[in-house]
């Protein structure tokens, strides 16, 4: 990549709040989507030549969103500028740019909201920090709404639960509505519609890849572990992020999923129609896209006649699946409308719908249906990185916080050496990997590296104190981001991997002597 060399900030021995460096990352911008990317999604191809038209469209869209989303409306009004969130964002910690403080990121929009939608801002703009929407403001939105990974860490600490991610989503939605979309996310969404997954891997290539995988696993284990696609009548439909099909280290977890189903004797299948669990519709805050992408899973489930729907290791995908699928597609339970009931009567009510692969594996472990040789993982000293969307946007199991325990239970069941990172950096307070929410693109490498700082500091501590050499996680984006970013901090890229990679290493497939 051109431009100045990107350097990781130094790890701090005593993390303190950085001094403000105004506009430090104002110019870190991702590429803007072309007309060819924008138009198929129903967005204007580019900004209108006439500013007034863009202005009116943006304000109009904002008004619509304020009427559609209570979150946005309440969050615009409720913030008291108390400052509790100011030091909670990893991008602020890494860059020192004050506009990366969550409340300041919100204020980029709140200032405009006040000006156009509140009496105080209409009459006394200076007094309440209101400002007109200008081209400069829009550019600023583009910079800073694409420097937020929608990780929701700020919302944990806000006394009113103000979730900057909701405001970022609204900001991106308005930007799309005026033809100022982000290339990375919108291009990917286009691929899902055209091909079925984020990576643009067509059905035949998928089948090819997976049969190659079957051979590899056979060579490795001597077992006929299957990785089927589009098998009608299978019990389980596994929907996983497409990176799981060939990216490293993702594929190691895919191998693990297959082994778990094999060992438990559960019939399962991937789908070429729903070969993507990720849903970038959430990142751009666009309900229509979120909805359309999710429909593919519903359609696949109906066509294949599966009884259970299980989701692979992916953070935002799990949030969409867990929290939104029932709303969007009827995958879940408890519906009484014909649209959702059609699917829900097909799904087996004895299981959680959808279920996370970790829930499935942990259930099987508890039932004694999986056997492990834990010592197979003895070369690894493991820690676990909670992915933000799993931690703060979803749940696993039957109680609040199960999403923290279940992956750790699994790790401890398959490996002997496990150490958690510092408590203020895991669980609900976990730090984002720095690459989530649609910023996993090369042009944003600068903030991706800097945003990883707090996680890298916590990792360094367990590396020093406990000799940790493997950071497990259950998110495709975390895996991709860390693989790239770890070396900037002097760690090995291969240090990150999946929970089911550990499962895969230790699981006994029944043919051991």
């Amino acid at each position: 990549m051109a431009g100045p060399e990107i350097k990781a900030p130094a790890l701090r021995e005593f993390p303190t709040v950085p001094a403000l460096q105004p506009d430090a990352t104002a110019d870190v911008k991702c590429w803007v989507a072309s007309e060819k990317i924008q138009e198929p999604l129903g967005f204007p191809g580019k900004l209108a030549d006439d500013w007034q038209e863009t202005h009116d469209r943006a304000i109009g869209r904002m008004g619509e969103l304020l009427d559609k989303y209570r979150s946005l409306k309440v969050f615009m009004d409720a913030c008291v500028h108390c400052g509790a969130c100011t030091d909670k964002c990893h991008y602020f910690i890494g860059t020192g740019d004050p506009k990366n403080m969550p409340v300041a990121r919100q204020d980029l929009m709140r200032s405009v909201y006040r000006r156009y939608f509140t009496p105080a801002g209409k009459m006394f703009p200076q007094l309440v920090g209101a400002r007109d929407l200008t081209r400069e403001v829009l550019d600023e939105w583009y910079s800073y709404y694409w420097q937020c990974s929608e990780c929701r860490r700020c919302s944990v600490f806000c006394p009113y639960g103000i979730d900057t991610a909701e405001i970022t989503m609204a900001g991106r939605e308005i930007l799309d509505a005026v033809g100022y979309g982000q290339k990375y996310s919108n291009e990917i969404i286009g691929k899902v519609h055209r091909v079925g997954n984020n990576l643009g891997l067509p059905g035949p290539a998928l089948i090819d890849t997976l049969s190659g995988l079957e051979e590899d696993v056979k060579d490795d284990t001597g077992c006929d572990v299957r990785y089927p696609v589009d098998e009608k009548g299978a019990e389980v439909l596994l929907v996983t992020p497409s990176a799981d099909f060939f990216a490293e280290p993702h594929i190691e977890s895919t191998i693990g999923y297959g082994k778990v189903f094999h060992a438990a004797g559960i019939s399962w299948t991937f789908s070429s129609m729903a070969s993507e669990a990720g849903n970038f519709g959430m990142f751009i805050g666009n309900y229509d896209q979120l909805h359309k992408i999710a429909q593919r899973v519903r359609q696949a489930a109906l066509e294949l006649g599966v009884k259970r729907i299980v989701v692979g290791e992916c953070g935002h995908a799990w949030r969409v699946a867990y929290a939104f699928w029932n709303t969007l597609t009827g995958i879940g339970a408890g519906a009484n409308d014909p649209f959702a009931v059609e699917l829900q009567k097909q799904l087996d009510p004895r299981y959680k719908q959808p279920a996370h692969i970790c829930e499935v594996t942990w259930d099987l472990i508890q039932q004694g249906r999986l056997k492990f040789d834990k010592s197979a993982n003895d070369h690894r000293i493991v820690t676990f990185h909670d992915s933000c969307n799993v931690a703060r946007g979803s749940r696993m199991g039957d109680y609040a916080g199960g999403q923290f325990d279940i992956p750790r239970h699994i790790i401890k069941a398959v490996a002997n050496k496990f150490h958690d990172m510092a408590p203020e950096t895991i669980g609900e307070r976990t730090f984002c990997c720095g690459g989530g929410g649609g910023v996993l693109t090369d042009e944003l490498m600068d903030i991706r590296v800097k945003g990883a700082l707090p996680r890298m500091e916590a990792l360094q501590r367990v590396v020093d104190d406990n000799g940790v050499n493997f950071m497990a996680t259950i998110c495709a984006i975390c895996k991709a981001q860390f693989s790239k970013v770890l070396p900037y901090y002097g760690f090995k890229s291969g240090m990150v991997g999946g929970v089911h990679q550990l499962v895969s290493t230790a699981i006994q497939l029944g043919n051991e002597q």
Partner: protein
Amino acid sequence: MSLLFAILFYVAAAVFVGGLAYKIVDFARTPAPLKIPTTPAPISTPGVAFRMFREVVFFESLFKGNLWIWALGAAFHFGLALVLVRHLRYFLEPVPALIAFAQPFGMYAGFMMAAGLAGLWARRFLVERIRYISTYSDHLMLALLLTIAATGLGMKFVMHTDVIGVKAFFLGLMAFDIQPLPAHPGLYIHLACVALLMLVFPFSKLLHAPGIFFSPTRNQTDNPREARHLAPWAAKLEKN
């Protein structure tokens, strides 16, 4: 002067009640289309009620977030709550026993409230990042509340006013029968600022008080897999 204050308070009360009611209705009728509680979140309705209780009474999230702000904010709001309870004696006749009981605590509450406000205000000057996010209105709001507290404490401890007369004035207001308001500069400032506070309440960040109850990240039950959650405008998308 009595007439002036009477009009002022009628207007302020109307704006306060009307504006706040409008805002609350507006919050309530705006749908929350997706389940977005910040997890881990309670999985039952009583659990959500308990979470909300902890947020409103103990500022639980703020406690996790920043101890300084929490301590100062708690001192201010707790003081404010006691002071307001104590003030009910100007509006109720006879004074309920519970409020009479709270009177002695209320006196110190005024100091607690003022100290909290002063601390919060100091942060806006001393802490670089809070200074960065502060607007004029943030400062003015604290100034306003501090003026109310200072004049109130002044009347209590420095230059007394005729509290019986004040009570007669407000009881009269409520019966649409305007009584004379005791002449007292501290009281005039106190009351003018209170009226101003009521006037700006529905248009300012003071909406955090009703807002917290409508915050989807705090008031939603974490049960998306068990119950289908559908906003009316989202349901319409399914029809075509």
